[in-house]
């Protein structure tokens, strides 16, 4: 909010600190100053008033009060004028206008004054200058005065031309169905039924607390005016403002609540100001609807608690001095006790508990004066977060395997969903009520779609891409509404990456202490049907791996072949183990023999391995596949596997004769099937 430095200065006899200096002081003690800008002979201060301080600080008086508390300079609240003293009564106000409040919750106070014989014209120079610095439009002396008093006291005001008010009666009520209003800026608004309005007997005159209407506008011919200073309920104004999409200086203030006792002070100040600059006579008395009078409250402050909370010793004397500087006065009776009764003026709507007072004490005292002290706490070692531990471990393993970690948005668009989801799954996708754009309309049900976009983006710049993400995905669940789980998903580019990907999964699971891994055939929509597998641990599925189908790649303009793995991290984690069992290293040498076998194409490696292991028993320590060949030189419909077989015994050196015998046994076993042929 914009404030005028010269205006603030006008409340002080002594010189204020220079604008930049003042900004610094306010920033450290009250509110951050966004900007200090010289405009003419004045300076604009853009002050970021904290929302809880709006009721008392959306005003120059409020800021002057803060400055006074911080600097110790005295200020004079020139808005405190008793209207009656200066007015030249010209009949009683209540004879000029009557008010009726139909909604006493939405409007808890309505104060009106009448001024007759005004001369509408231009405002004096100082008012024009100050309003301009604060960014307000100049209208005429009457309206400018109302605005001026709002910026001064924080109380929004409105002026009506009394002669244009039908029946000389002001009614505060909710709008009726179909009612419309044309506002002062010539915009037309349809008024919904829960919008509070100011009306006369015939039609709406203003949208309460937001903007005035054309009907009772002040113009050059206006002679008699009605001034309004009211207190409207924040919730009502907030809703209306949102509905009408119309935020004004007035609505901003009402939305943050206002001191109900401010209306009287502000209306008197405005009446006097108008009389001063536009002439006219103030009628006698207020017309004031004010049912439930609000009185200052008292907060008990335990002086010892100030030190306990702030961690610095501040004497009781200083505590009292600080509070008094803010207009918060301790009751005289109990001043010697440890607990002070502090009277809170009604304009400090933000203060309700003693912690609020301790904040006031702390900030005026100065947070920089509080010396850092390490807490004396019981030594409790932090708990180990096993979830985080495995996340960290998995990320490290993939990094060691050459993967780059990416973080993608948690959102996807309609197309992403239709590409990756079958109709059955589509209903389970979570949609946002208020997406920022169509691009981000849904919560991601998997990580694959955004990872593929990463590939698309990087494919021209990198030959081989290996990326992964560990992040949350979302689906609607039956019990909880939304089911949220962590997925580990990786993508590799390149031809025939299936086996490499499978190898990576094997190493990953191995490093996580998981054995008993099995790969089953599976048909996921996004994969080529053949090159896709389900990953199972102890017989339970934890994820999939496979190649992305050519159609999907084409849709996404991806030129490279892509292999993906997607693992349910929550499931994976249950199988992870930190235990490592050391296997004794045999003291006796091992021997390697090679073996090549020609088999029908549909035979799987695992079938051959099983036979070798069964025939070789314990003496076969390891069998490693080193080549698969099919094509020329080989019978059609067949393929050739080549293995290294490693023989070793735990208790002796195997003789080559012994090995020959086992190898023969293996060969015989393999050749039992007439279609299989061991190549010699």
């Amino acid at each position, binding site marked *: 909010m914009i404030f005028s430095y010269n205006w603030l200065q006008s409340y002080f006899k002594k010189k204020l600190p220079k604008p930049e200096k003042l900004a610094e002081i306010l920033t450290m003690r009250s509110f951050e100053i966004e900007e200090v800008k010289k405009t003419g002979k004045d300076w604009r201060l853009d002050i970021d008033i904290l929302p809880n301080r709006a009721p008392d600080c959306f005003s120059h008086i409020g800021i002057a009060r803060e400055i006074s508390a911080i600097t110790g300079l005295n200020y004079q609240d020139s808005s405190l004028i008793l209207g009656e003293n200066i007015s030249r009564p010209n009949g009683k106000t209540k004879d000029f206008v009557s008010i009726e409040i139909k909604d006493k919750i939405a409007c808890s106070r309505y104060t009106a004054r009448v001024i007759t014989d005004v001369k509408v014209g231009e405002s004096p120079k100082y008012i024009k200058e100050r309003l301009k610095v604060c960014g307000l439009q100049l209208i005429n002396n009457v309206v400018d005065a109302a605005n001026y008093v709002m910026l001064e006291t924080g109380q929004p005001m409105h002026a009506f031309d009394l002669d244009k008010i039908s029946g000389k009666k002001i009614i505060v009520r909710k709008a009726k169905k179909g009612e419309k209003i044309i506002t002062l800026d010539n915009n037309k608004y349809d008024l919904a039924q829960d919008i509070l309005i100011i009306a006369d007997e015939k039609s709406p005159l203003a949208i309460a607390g937001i903007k005035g209407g054309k009907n009772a506008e002040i113009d050059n011919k206006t002679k008699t005016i009605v001034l309004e200073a009211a207190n409207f309920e924040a919730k009502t104004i907030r809703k209306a403002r949102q509905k009408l999409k119309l935020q004004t200086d007035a609505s901003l203030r009402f939305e943050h609540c206002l001191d109900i006792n401010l209306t009287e002070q502000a209306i008197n100040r405005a009446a006097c100001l108008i009389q001063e600059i536009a002439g006219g006579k103030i009628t006698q008395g207020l017309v004031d609807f004010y049912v439930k009078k609000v009185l200052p409250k008292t907060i008990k402050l335990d002086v010892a608690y100030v030190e306990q909370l702030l961690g*610095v010793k501040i004497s009781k004397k200083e505590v009292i001095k600080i509070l008094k500087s803010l207009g918060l006065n301790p009751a005289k009776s109990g001043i010697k006790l440890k607990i002070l009764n502090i009277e809170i003026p009604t304009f400090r709507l933000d203060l309700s508990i003693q912690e609020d007072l301790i904040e006031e004490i702390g900030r005026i005292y100065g947070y920089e004066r509080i010396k850092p002290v390490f807490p004396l706490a019981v030594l409790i070692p932090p708990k180990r977060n096993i979830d985080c531990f495995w996340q960290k471990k998995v990320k490290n393993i993939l990094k060691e395997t050459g993967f*780059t970690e990416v*973080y993608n*948005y948690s*959102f996807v668009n309609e197309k992403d969903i239709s590409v990756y989801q079958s109709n059955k799954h589509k209903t389970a996708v979570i949609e946002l009520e208020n997406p920022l754009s169509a691009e981000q309309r849904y919560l991601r049900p998997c990580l694959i779609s955004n990872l593929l976009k990463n590939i698309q983006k990087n494919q021209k710049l990198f030959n081989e891409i290996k990326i992964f993400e560990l992040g949350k995905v979302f689906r609607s669940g039956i019990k909880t509404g939304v089911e949220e789980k962590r997925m580990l998903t990786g993508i590799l580019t390149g031809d025939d990456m299936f086996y490499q990907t499978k190898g990576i999964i094997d190493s990953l699971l191995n490093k996580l202490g998981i054995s008993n891994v099995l790969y089953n055939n599976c048909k996921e929509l996004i994969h080529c049907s053949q090159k896709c597998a389900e990953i199972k641990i102890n017989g339970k599925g934890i994820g999939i791996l496979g190649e992305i189908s050519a159609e999907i790649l084409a849709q996404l303009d991806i030129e490279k072949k892509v292999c993906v793995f997607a693992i349910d991290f929550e499931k994976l984690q249950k199988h992870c183990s930190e235990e490592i069992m050391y296997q004794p290293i045999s003291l006796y040498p091992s021997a390697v023999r090679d073996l090549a076998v020609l088999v029908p194409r549909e035979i799987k490696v695992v079938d051959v391995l099983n036979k070798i292991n069964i025939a070789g028993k314990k003496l076969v320590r390891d069998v490693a596949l080193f080549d698969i060949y099919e094509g020329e030189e080989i019978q059609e419909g067949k393929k050739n596997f080549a293995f290294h077989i490693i023989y070793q015994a735990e208790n002796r050196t195997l003789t080559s004769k012994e090995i020959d015998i086992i190898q023969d046994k293996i060969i015989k076993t393999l050749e039992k099937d007439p279609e299989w042929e061991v190549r010699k």
Partner: protein
Amino acid sequence: MIKIHMELKKLEITARKDIKSAKNLKDLDDIFKKYLGKKGELTLILRSLKNLPIKERKTQGKIANQIKKDLELIIQEQKHKLQASSFKIQDTGFDITVPGKKQDLGHLHPLTLVRRKVEEIFQSMGFSVVEGPEVESEWYNFDALNIPKEHPARDLWDTFYLKQKKLLLRTHTSPVQIRYMEKNQPPLRIIVPGRVFRHEATDAGHEVNFYHIEGLMIDKKGKVSVANFKAIIGEFFKRFFEKEIKIRLRPSYFPFTEPSFEIDINCVNCLGKGCSVCAQTGWVETLGAGMVHPNVLKAVGLNPKFWQGFAFGVGMDRLAIMKYKIQDIRLFYGGDLRFLQQF
């Protein structure tokens, strides 16, 4: 007898000379053959010893064998010398300026690196790491944190709502405070890293999703104060940036803390002198904090008469931006490998 002795001595001297003067491996091999080969001079002498009387044979044999060993040793030494020098000669074309063969190492995301560092520092000060859900209820995200419905304070958090069941995407990781305190008795010290969401237009400084770290310390009344918070947070910044960092507390407002403050740190870029990063102020706003509001303690069933504490929230993206001098927050979520592979 003396003759043999003399012969041996002479042989040793010439052999040593020959070996030392060998220019290449071929020469050396010839020398070996000449003295130690099957028909080598020394071999012949050794063989002739068997004709001597036993006592003589022993003494002379000992000497001759020693010479044999010595010669073998210096031949070996000479061989190594010649081999080494032959390498040198061959390697004149070796070019150390040829680029090294690139190894494909992986990369962790900068936010992962920052998170690890933050966790490590706080864990060393006794804080446990806790996580929570990204989809939250209004109760945990707002009400329990003393942010009532229809209160303008809710506007401070631009929120994504789901179409389902009044759920939302958490706007901070503070709900985990509540979840944790519901299940764990104080005294407690936790930090909560995690992804959060804000419904606002993106630019270099704003993203729709980003990362927060929330901190919470609750202890008996009088045991944990603003002064303690200053010490903990000061230590954190010092260790995070690995240098002395000045901090300052400014008054602020959060519904869930009272008093509340904003923490500025000395601009890491200009060290407080003023630059474009800090808008010439020398300070950068990094963290919101305060003493836990009694209403929050009440919401989890703790009596504010007996317990108090501090809480803080810091944007991890912002820490990363300062640490690595990154200009645009959007780089974190853009998946550009040219960016990610720098970490």
